[in-house]
């Protein structure tokens, strides 16, 4: 049962994480900072998942990455693009609709 729950959770997280990153990146951030921000909110992100996701979003033009070399340690900062904002709004609308449906159905019971 636990295994099954874990595998469904992974499926659910896949889409949720994309939305989460697009929301967080309204303000420029780098990978580890995003992991910490989520942890503070009580949401654990697998560290080795965030960077491949950022790379895919960057390839699709939804976010833009830039290496910051002036700091103590080189870090790649990401920022959302206009296409990313459009996508984020679309995903939020889907998310809200799904949330409404689930709320409605669970209240009925």
């Amino acid at each position, binding site marked *: 049962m636990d295994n099954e729950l874990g595998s469904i959770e992974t499926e659910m997280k896949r889409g949720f994480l994309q939305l989460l990153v697009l929301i967080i990146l309204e303000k420029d951030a*780098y990978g*580890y900072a995003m992991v910490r921000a989520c942890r503070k909110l009580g949401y654990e992100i697998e*560290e*080795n*998942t965030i*960077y*491949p996701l950022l790379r895919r979003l960057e390839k699709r033009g939804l976010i833009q990455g830039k290496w910051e070399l002036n700091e103590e340690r080189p870090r790649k900062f990401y920022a959302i693009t206009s296409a990313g904002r459009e996508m984020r709004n679309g995903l939020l609308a889907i998310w809200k609709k799904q949330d409404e449906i689930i709320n409605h159905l669970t209240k009925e019971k």
Partner: protein
Amino acid sequence: MYKNLETYLEEISHFLSGRAERQEILSEIRSHILEKAEQEAGAVSEASLEKVVAAYGRPRQVAEKYLDGRPVIAPAFKRLLFRYTTLLFAIHLVFIVFAVIFKKSFIIFPFFFMPRLGVIEAVIYLPAAFLTDFGIVALLLYFITQSDKDFKLPWPKFVPDLDEVKAPAAKTLAARIATMVGAWIMLTLTAVAVKLFIKYQTIFSVSFNFEKFRPLLLPKPGRLVSLIVIVMLAAGTIGLFIRIFTLPRRFACWLDVVSDSMALVLIGLLLRQPYAELFAVKIPPVFLPKIRIALTFTLLFAALMIAIDLVSNLVRLGRKRLAK
């Protein structure tokens, strides 16, 4: 430079081989691990890095998250990998049998060459033939998968899957009696043939008057052809006796494979007989070529029909076995 971190990154790099952005990926992971080690342990050290590296995941697992998820062979084609391999291998096997019987090489231009083989060579050749067939089919399906097109690959209707073959109905008493009568008739014929062979070294006579036995064929070919026919009669008798009982599908398939293979070998031996020096009685020369053509055509047609049955039975058995 931290040795354990660099070793870890090198391992990830190995699995990312061929990706243009490999160095950038590694730099990002390095930056993340160093920062996390500093945040959690207060300072970067080999010991703190070891803990963070272990938590980050196995190198292959990490690298795979960056790789394209397209499978080598699409799930929709995986079943065909086994089906096509068994079909191709079954055809290959028939060619191997022919190569052994006729002691000849075959070329089916431009793809296929079947060298002349002895029995032992053929047995050694079989695994290589199977691997070649598997490789060819896998390569074909790989290219189709990578093309990302919705090909509807065919599957010949003459070879249903074993699970699509209807289970044989339990034999009725009448059917059992009919098979039993047939088996006894075949047994009698075999016994008569054996008796004639022991007495005259051939079973072919010009007339049915066995008091004045006149052989139809010359002694040497007569002996060989008689033996072949006796073996065929005996095999047919055994087959009929087995079929009196209701057989499981798999066993019935195996029985067909064995009898088909044996029949192919025997037909091969018959085809190798020089017909010009076959008859002990005088046959008008004008008829000889016609008899030769008619005999060859009949035997080749029978061989073709048996080969098709053999292929279809092998595919049924093989596909089921490979799919497990």
